[in-house]
């Protein structure tokens, strides 16, 4: 009786890894953790590239930038960035970032997280951080469902879209995130898709340089759950859909930028206004009331 053959290697061509290739953004990513967890043709990797390019373009010192993220697929972004980064608990990325920004005013704090993390469980933190105009930069990656836990319907799932908790279609009205951000008091509100990479890079660079609460919603393909459950094809098909249906309308009224299921997506920079940040407003107000008695908080030199 002969041994069954188990060696199939000669039937496949598997190339040996080539010489040491070094990606230009290698110094910003923790490539020792690669391959990352994001599915093939998911848009989050593209958005992380755009974030790094935007950071380079903004001219900020990477030593003075911190990234906080919550739970979810996009929550892993903090772990793959070679910056000061923290992966916080579900929905609590914004309170953590608020503490970081107030405790060390020199830091520019970015929050990269998903729609479920920012708008659902962290919704209250979101509206109050925007109301107080804390110096934060929010990058909300919207894939229309809770992709990490199996595709449940979330606060942005469009009406009629199929999710694992709404098998006959979603009947809840979704959030219009730019409108929510603007009405809560954000000073910079934009929406782009994962396909608009150059405009997205410019928006991230602008938002990082903007003092105050800046909010960028990024529509991203979810090939494994949202697109599969709704028979929308691969991530590439979703990208082609963005190409066909995204309309750029800078300065559009945020009340009218709802996203309907597979209808046109209005993208662009909606709001860009100036308003004193939380720290500035606090210092000005208390200076006026207390005069010299008021000593503004400064981070101690030996602080860590």
């Amino acid at each position: 009786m002969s041994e069954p053959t188990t060696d199939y290697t000669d039937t496949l061509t598997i190339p040996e890894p080539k010489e040491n290739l070094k990606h230009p953004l290698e110094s910003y990513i923790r490539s020792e953790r690669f391959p990352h967890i994001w599915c093939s043709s998911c848009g989050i990797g593209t958005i992380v590239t755009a974030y790094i390019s935007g950071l380079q373009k903004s001219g900020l010192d990477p030593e003075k930038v911190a990234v906080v993220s919550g739970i979810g697929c996009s929550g892993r972004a903090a772990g793959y960035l070679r910056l000061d980064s923290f992966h916080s608990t579900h929905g609590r990325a914004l309170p953590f970032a608020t503490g970081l920004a107030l405790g060390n005013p020199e830091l520019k704090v970015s929050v990269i997280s998903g729609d479920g993390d920012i708008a659902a469980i962290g919704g209250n933190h979101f509206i109050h951080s925007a109301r107080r105009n804390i110096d934060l930069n929010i990058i909300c990656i919207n894939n229309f469902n809770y992709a990490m836990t199996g595709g449940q319907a979330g606060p942005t799932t469009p009406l009629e879209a199929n999710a694992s908790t709404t098998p006959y279609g979603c009947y809840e009205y979704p959030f219009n995130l730019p409108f929510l951000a603007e009405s809560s008091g954000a000073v910079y509100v934009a929406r782009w898709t994962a396909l608009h990479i150059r405009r997205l890079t410019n928006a991230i660079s602008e938002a990082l340089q903007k003092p105050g609460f800046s909010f960028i919603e990024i529509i991203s393909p979810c090939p494994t759950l949202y697109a599969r459950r709704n028979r929308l094809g691969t991530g590439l098909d979703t990208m082609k859909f963005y190409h066909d249906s995204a309309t750029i309308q800078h300065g559009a009224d945020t009340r009218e930028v709802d996203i309907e299921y597979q209808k046109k997506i209005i993208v662009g920079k909606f709001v860009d206004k100036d308003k004193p940040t939380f720290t500035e407003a606090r210092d000005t107000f208390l200076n006026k009331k207390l005069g010299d008695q008021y000593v503004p908080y400064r981070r101690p030199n030996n602080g860590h």
Partner: protein
Amino acid sequence: MSYWRVPLDIQNVKIPKGDIHIITERCKGCNFCVEYCPRDVLEMSTDFNRKGYHYPQVLKQGACVNCNLCEMICPEFSIYCLEGEEKPPEPDQVLRKGENHES
């Protein structure tokens, strides 16, 4: 084939050239770079990498103009473009009338 008039500064124009490098082991075969390359430089290889995905390979050697779009759209940090030696445009590379080079 009708051409726009020859640009006055044609002697000074240099077309940038890019060298594409592909870290095949990171690729997950999403096809974004192949689809969105404005010069259609890339194609999907028939080979697999260690994870079992097809990865892109350079189809038209020397056609890359270093626009870096593949590098920006790649979700896996697995393709990048470095600036190569610039060269003067060939006659057939002068913009043809009505051709859209913005995408």
